[in-house]
């Protein structure tokens, strides 16, 4: 829908106000990735995966959801969607600083925890969606995963179950070209990922994942179908991981530099800026003001996260059970006493 120079080739489903809001989220997380990566190099932040290059894909999808009733089942590379759903940025920071408190999901935020075991969230997302439907809610669930995770058995099992139950779930597959160092061509011989939908009796669609408006539109259509009881959609969002897999990764060992250069030219943030600039609602001044504003928000979140005291030994035990076994309760006590004596 949006050419790289910002030319519009369709009827946009987002008004300027929404596009500006989406752009802010894209810039916010791009800035977060840069700051957190710098902090990680200084030993002040843990190993984490940036969303660099995929901002339009994640944000376009997320803006089609109603956080009041829709659910997210993330992987770990979708910070913008988490923020829009209400998960606090300082929790995300705490999690990657190694503080278990970061895992806490506020009561009113409809979200599963970050998922490190690839694809394991997808059966759960399907179950939440099916459960919402069984209980008469019209909420939908979006689950994020990549071209790498698409090879996991959980993906097959989940899409199959979603077809059978007509669960209102959206399988948002970000084909970003890489699973750490393994290229997309090593994951599947199939021409496309979206075509798999046919085999499960669900909808499938491919979209330019660097086009905010296009991603938003196909996701909004999938959400409408799901709310109307028409079941699941597999969205293949074709994008590119222009950063490293994570801060411990060295893409220079495997990346195709020419391919990367081509994708960097398709930067999703620049594309939206070009669009808004042509409409006269974006200038160098507004761009700088927004970047300053985002940097301040991130600094505040990082300061807040650093002010949270490191959890004590009780963090090993808290929240494992509602009603813990007596043995674990005794261990908790002895761990606390031993640490206090140390």
């Amino acid at each position, binding site marked *: 829908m949006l050419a790289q120079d910002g030319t519009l080739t369709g009827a946009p489903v987002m008004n300027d106000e929404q596009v500006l809001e989406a752009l802010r989220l894209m810039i916010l997380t791009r800035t977060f990735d840069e700051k957190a990566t710098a902090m990680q190099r200084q030993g002040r932040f843990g190993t984490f995966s940036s969303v660099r290059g995929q901002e339009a894909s994640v944000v376009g999808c997320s803006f089609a959801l109603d956080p009041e009733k829709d659910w997210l089942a993330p992987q770990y590379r979708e910070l913008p969607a988490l923020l829009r759903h209400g998960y606090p940025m300082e929790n995300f920071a705490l999690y990657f600083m190694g503080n278990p408190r970061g*895992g806490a999901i506020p009561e009113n935020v409809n979200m599963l925890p970050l998922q490190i075991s690839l694809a394991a969230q997808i059966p759960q997302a*399907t179950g939440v969606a099916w459960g919402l439907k069984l209980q008469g809610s019209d909420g939908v669930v979006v689950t994020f995963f990549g071209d790498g995770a698409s090879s996991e058995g959980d993906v097959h099992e989940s899409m199959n179950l979603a077809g059978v139950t007509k669960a209102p779930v959206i399988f948002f597959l970000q084909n970003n070209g890489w699973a750490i160092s393994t290229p997309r061509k090593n994951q599947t011989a199939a021409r496309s990922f979206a075509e798999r939908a046919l085999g499960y009796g669900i909808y499938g669609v491919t979209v330019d994942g660097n086009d905010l408006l296009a991603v938003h539109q196909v996701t909004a259509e999938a959400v409408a179908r799901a709310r109307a009881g028409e079941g699941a959609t597999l969205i293949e969002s074709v994008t590119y991981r222009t950063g490293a897999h994570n801060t411990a990764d060295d893409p220079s060992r495997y990346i195709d530099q020419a391919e990367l250069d081509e994708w960097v030219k398709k930067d999703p943030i620049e594309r939206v800026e070009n669009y808004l600039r042509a409409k006269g609602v974006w200038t160098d001044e507004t761009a700088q003001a927004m970047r300053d504003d985002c940097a301040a928000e991130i600094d505040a979140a990082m300061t807040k996260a650093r002010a949270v005291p490191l959890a004590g030994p009780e963090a090993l035990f808290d929240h494992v059970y509602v009603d813990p076994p007596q043995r674990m309760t005794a261990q908790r006590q002895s761990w606390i006493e031993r640490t206090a004596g140390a």
Partner: protein
Amino acid sequence: MSEKTMVEAIRECMRQEMEANDKVVVIGEDVGKLGGVFRATDGLQAQFGDQRVVDMPLAEGVIIGSGIGLAISGLRPIIELQFLGFGHQAFHQIGQQVARLRFRSQGRHSLPLVIRSPYGGGVRTPELHSDAFEAYYTHTPGLKVIAPASAYDAKGLLAEAIASDDPVLFLEPLKGYRLVKDEVPDERYRIPLGKLRVMREGTDVTLIAWSAASVMVNQAAEELAAQGISAEVLDLRSLTPLDIDGIAASVAKTGRVAVIQEAPLTGGFASEIIATIQEECFYSLQAPILRITAPDTPYPLGGVEDYFVPDAARVVAEVSALMSESA
């Protein structure tokens, strides 16, 4: 009160809990019209409909994984895993997800779900159906693992498991489904998780077992009595939580212990019990603790399984030897 088989008691429990709470649903392979391969869910779909008793696609990973999602959405799923041997196909969802989601979300997502699964040997099943894999799950913090041996306990413990906000793996001895029969109240009742049952009182030796092995060990205790050996039989009922006080009280009384399990020896739950006894009541012991287990070999085909699964004759022989060596 009337005499019921274990499978009847389990079915009656699910029916009553589903009548009492419309959030309770049953999902699994062949649980609908067929009523499950052991008929544990017989009649439930006819009574509650196909939205509450659901025949699932044959895919254990998503049966467990979607059960997690159902629980998060506000339901209380009872998930039938057709045989525990098939749990390997779902182990990533049980071990890393069911058991940890509450911990990983810092208390946000409790998982009030029960995974019911037939397990254990002795009924000549096809290959890969009969292993006693309980130790994988007792080694997984975040789960509760229950393994009843009587119909009365099965009904009361299952009701408690369904009411629990923690995830429970509920192991049902497939050998005991129809062989085990005892008096079971017709009304609803619950038995707390984590308390063992003294199946038989005795003074010379404590025999510790769970699930189908408890029934077998109780028969062995009869034969030992005829030889003048007074054996106390502890049916653990609950592996996690473990009734450490109940075990210690019996060991303090008898001073001799044999632990009997169907699973292979190395790394089995019997080892955990023995380590616990030496921590809690080493100085009560008058003899080394005996382990009676299967060998460290894969579960065999049915034609030779009687060599594999410990039986009453072996328990009698090994406990008699223990008594004479330590007299």
